[in-house]
């Protein structure tokens, strides 16, 4: 079904604005979920390329849902082809300059442990934890993107914290 011209995403400026707004979040979303930064970034490019090819059929409101859906399908295909891929989350620790010397001294070590602990979380809990902490998304926003209920997100977040505490204690 074609979408009316002033509502579709074929206009260069509309398309580019969408990319600037959605691409960083989609890239993080894929990275948290599938633990592979290279695939995540390639997939963002492919999903937006597909969006461009189908721009006549996609309205501005549905563009986000469209690229998220296309991207997840594509990244799953990639990962299936490459079954033994290395999980690679690509976190960075903040530097002393970014957080100040006192904070750095106090939390650097626990931060390093936390990085390892996050990688051990089950997929569902990890993505919720990271979307909430790093992308500052509300439970409702996360629920919408993952297509589950808010209650389910709250349960996952709770479980993630319980598990992170235990793992960090053991490390």
């Amino acid at each position, binding site marked *: 079904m074609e979408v009316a011209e002033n509502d579709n995403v074929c206009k260069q400026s509309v398309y580019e604005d969408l990319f600037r707004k959605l*691409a960083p979040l989609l890239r993080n979303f894929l990275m948290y979920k599938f633990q592979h930064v290279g695939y995540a970034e390639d997939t963002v*490019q492919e999903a937006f*390329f*597909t969006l461009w090819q189908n721009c006549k059929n996609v309205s501005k409101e549905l563009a986000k849902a469209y690229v998220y859906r296309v991207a997840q399908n594509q990244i799953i295909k990639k990962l299936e082809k490459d079954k033994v891929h290395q999980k690679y989350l690509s976190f960075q620790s903040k530097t002393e300059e970014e957080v100040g010397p006192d904070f*750095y001294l106090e939390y650097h070590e626990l931060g390093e442990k936390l990085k390892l602990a996050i990688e051990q979380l089950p997929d569902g809990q990890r993505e919720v934890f990271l979307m909430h*902490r790093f992308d500052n998304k509300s439970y409702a926003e996360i629920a919408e993107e993952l297509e589950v209920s808010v209650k389910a997100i*709250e*349960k996952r977040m709770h479980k993630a914290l319980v598990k992170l505490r235990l793992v960090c204690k053991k490390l």
Partner: protein
Amino acid sequence: MNWEQDDIFLSKWLNGELSEEERLAFESTEEGKEFIQLMKASKMIKPSIYDVESALSDLNRRIEANPKQVQKQFWLQTNFQLAVAASVALIVAVVYLFTLGDQDIQTGYSEQEIVLLPDGSEVKVNAASQLSYAADSWEENRSINLVGEAFFKVKKGSTFDVKTINGNVQVLGTSFNVRSRRNMLDVICYTGKVAVTAENTSKQLTPGQMIRIKDGEMIEFKVLDLGDEPTWTNGITTLENVDLPVVLDELNHVFGITVEYDGSLDHLSYTGAFPNQQVEAALKLVFEPLDIAYSFDPSSKELVIHGLNK
């Protein structure tokens, strides 16, 4: 302690949803202090940097190098049974005319699509599925990648391959249904002959035969009530002896509902059918025979599985 009994306590705490009293009580405990430390430490980490502007200019270069090739014609499919056609939300037939390069067809929830391949073979793609093939080399290599479920009517000619993560299906000219969901592949042969291969095993099917590959094991079935096409092309989903997670997946694909479920009933298996247009009737048809207690909110499309009826 509250955080051990209430399974969303820590989420409420993070969101500032606890009462002042509850919060202070929690934060003064040993564990509460540890959780505070943990949240502070999470400020030490950030995701690696992403350069959105350089990604956008890469993308623009790619777009310039690949002018749009896809020409599609859409029309509404009308030859389904009238009753179904009236209620199916959107069934769109897509014809890819003289297209080049890789074709990628995806259906969303509650959506079906008909794809005409370059040689005149026809594919009906069920909801939440994806089909891809190389149109420019189609004459030499009739090969399709499938995620999900589709029904194929293949014109006679060279070998025709359907590849899924659970195994491959190879035919000459025939009609057959492929459903590849989770760890399970179901292939039903309607006419002609179909060869199914997975890992070390291979099996030829004749009309009315069905094969299921699950966790590398092959099981053969006889389909008693075959018809010309699978029932889903007429708006009815039929499931034969499948595990509960597969049933929940199908409900999600067909109705676009979300499911809250703790995984405790994965061992249950279901045989039956439900209409693709009536969500509440479908839920009844699925869960009553299984004796499962559930609740469904039609406005938010949220299904909650509570467990077995006491």
